[in-house]
């Protein structure tokens, strides 16, 4: 009885998670306009032709931009979060507890209020309409929360390990590289995924700081297409491109989880 109950909850939650993805898949495979609802589409009307039209020049640019921005942001965030977490958890100094509060309060600031200062800052460095500008703003947005989580992970690693490393004559950076980073690997991977997703899904900064399709990310580019087509005439092709982008993200996370699984054999 208990098992059936657990199974029902599991299936309901899986359905809830997958449902919009399924809707997207059916919409992307439909050969007719989806005005009358997806339930009215019969299996014989499903086609893969919409996927063939996805890889247009614009879609490739958007996808490439999104990947470049997300990967660079993640790399910067991981390096800086590790440095900050190490300095906070392994060195004693006054007021270090307040840095955590500052990080949380920084994350609390709504991006909408930072748009004007950011636009002026980017304008001053000639970074409006550029991918570097998007990387910087995304880093600013994601760094506080990622650093906060990284501090939590570093705190959970016992300082005895550092001490024994130091006794064996290892330098500070050797301790960081050879002891702490391998210990915090799960946390680092989790935070990489978090920062990657935050910048991958970001729409606000691209929306405000890029006018040109050459420098827009996928989420914003798709939104511009959606606004220009409120009646959903091109919905099958939107759905097909969205489906491909989401699938890429899922495969990437699957790969990450698989690597964690292989390394730690925890799942």
């Amino acid at each position, binding site marked *: 009885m208990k098992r059936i109950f657990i199974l029902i909850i*599991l299936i309901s*939650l*899986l359905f809830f998670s997958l*449902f*919009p*993805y399924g*809707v*997207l898949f059916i*919409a992307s495979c439909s050969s007719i306009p*989806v005005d009358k*609802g*997806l339930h*009215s589409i019969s299996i014989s009307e499903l086609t893969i032709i919409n996927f063939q039209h996805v890889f247009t020049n614009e879609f490739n640019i958007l996808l490439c931009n999104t990947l470049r921005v997300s990967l660079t942001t993640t790399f910067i965030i991981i390096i*800086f*979060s590790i*440095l*900050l977490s*190490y300095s*906070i958890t392994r*060195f004693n100094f006054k007021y270090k507890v307040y840095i*955590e*509060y500052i*990080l*949380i309060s*920084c*994350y*609390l*600031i*709504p*991006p*909408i*209020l*930072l748009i*004007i200062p950011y636009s*002026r*800052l980017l304008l001053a460095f000639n970074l409006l309409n550029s991918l570097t500008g998007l990387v910087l703003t995304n880093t*600013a947005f994601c*760094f506080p929360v990622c*650093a906060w989580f990284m501090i*939590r992970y570093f705190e959970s690693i016992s300082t005895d390990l550092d001490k024994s490393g130091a006794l064996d004559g290892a330098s500070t950076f050797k301790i960081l590289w050879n002891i702490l980073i391998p210990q915090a690997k*799960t946390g680092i991977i*989790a935070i990489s995924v978090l920062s990657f997703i935050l910048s991958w*899904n970001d*729409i*606000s900064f691209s929306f405000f700081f890029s006018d040109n399709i050459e420098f827009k990310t996928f989420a914003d580019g798709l*939104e511009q297409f*959606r*606004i220009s087509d*409120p009646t*959903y005439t091109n919905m099958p092709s*939107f*759905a097909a491109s*969205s489906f491909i*982008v*989401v699938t890429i*993200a899922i495969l990437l*996370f*699957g790969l990450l*989880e698989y690597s964690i699984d292989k390394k730690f054999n925890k*799942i």
Partner: protein
Amino acid sequence: MKFLQYLKNLSKFLICFIPPIVLIIILIFIPTLFTLVMCFENYGNSIRIILGKLEDRNFVNSIYNSFLYTLCTVTLQIILGYLTALLMFFIPKNRFSIFIWIIFFLPYAVPSTVAVISWSMSLREEGFISYVLKYFFNIDNYSWFKEYLLLSTIIVSVWQFYPFVYIGLLTSLRKIPHNLLRSSEIDGARFYQKIKYIIFPQTKKTLISIIVLRILLMFTKFDTPYLMGINNKSNELTLLPTYIYSLINISGINTISASAAMYFPLILVMLFTSIFILLRIKKLVNN
């Protein structure tokens, strides 16, 4: 000799500490300071505009909607996230675990635009949800997306962000020592007793941190509510961030200082709340 050692340690500390702090100062502190200066540089004008806005029904509605939206989304996200994490923790590992993990994580990997497109297709009058409700419960076709925009936005936001809670709690659950659970089983503890006396106390710190973060993030959420409302003529969904954006969009830079000023007291309240909760976490950690 001691002084040299001190200098060596200091230089190591500074090499690690200075780069991230410079990043925070340049990318977060200076822009925030700029916003605050902007709030108060023309304070007389800002106050006048704020007082005027208090009579604006949309402004009052936006505050009410923001609180309602935050409360509902955070509560539902925590319930769903905790349930999912518990399921994943207790279900024995098998070859399908990784697929289940990915499926549960999927909503978080979906960009807001895609989530909104997908849900708006389902919540339309001709959408799948209306069809299912009509088929099984004989409820007339109804455009949930247009008529109940706030409810639709809450559903989309819960769907999008409950994996955040799930991942955070699952990490915390995996850290619980197996000996604890095993010894409770030997002592004859039931399932709910294990949850009440072992799992919940062990995950309490993480849960509080996640709740604080979710409240802050949902309260300042801009993209999902904005995208849900963009092609919709309904005025029901005006949250504080979208209201401020509409002010910036309509009236330009003069009103930005006023809108920033409107947000500022709320930021302070949330700041104090988060510091209070963080202090509680510290206290729990120390205990």
